[in-house]
């Protein structure tokens, strides 16, 4: 399973370029977007901090485990850090697989694991 991990401070691309090959039958994608309210307060955005070396290792470790249950061909993970304004994506995950079931399964399970184990933090909302 090919894994590409990117951390960036500018906007997450849309679309993400994803080289489709002949046996790829499903592309499942997720953008996690900053909502306009955090803890009941209107915000302009959120700041994110990443421990990049370890975050990449954890992402690869988690995906390596999940591929046993959900064999996919290629996964791209992009996480933005620094200030992310409302309406922009903080994270993108894209999965190419033969069938949709393993792609959906990997995507959903990966997001659950990311939110528990990958050293990335919201470090405070920025008020409007």
């Amino acid at each position: 399973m090919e894994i590409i991990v990117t951390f960036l401070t500018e906007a997450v691309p849309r679309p993400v370029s994803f080289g489709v090959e002949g046996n790829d039958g499903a592309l499942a994608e997720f953008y996690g977007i900053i909502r306009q309210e955090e803890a009941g307060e209107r915000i302009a955005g959120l700041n994110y901090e990443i421990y990049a070396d370890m975050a990449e290792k954890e992402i690869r470790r988690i995906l390596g485990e999940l591929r046993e249950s959900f064999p996919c061909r290629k996964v791209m993970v992009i996480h933005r850090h620094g200030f992310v304004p409302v309406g922009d994506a903080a994270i993108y995950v894209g999965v190419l697989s033969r069938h949709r079931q393993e792609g959906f399964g990997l995507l959903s399970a990966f997001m659950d694991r990311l939110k528990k184990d990958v050293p990335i933090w919201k470090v405070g909302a920025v008020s409007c």
Partner: protein
Amino acid sequence: MSRILFFAQARDAAGCGEIEWRNQGGETAGILWDWLVCTFPDLGSVQAGARLARNGHYLSDGETFGTEDEIAVIPPVSGG
């Protein structure tokens, strides 16, 4: 000599992002936490929810530190 990195609330509590730790090697997580809370008392409130990492991996039960480790204090994560 090891380095200790602080992130998020741990950075706020320590007041800095990184320090050096002149350790002997063989220290447990408990020994490190005692030293950290003694040095940065505000880290006491972070300790309960935080995990430690060693060279980019979460510390296993019983794992001890070497003398040239990159150690990190990892408060509860909130990515995505």
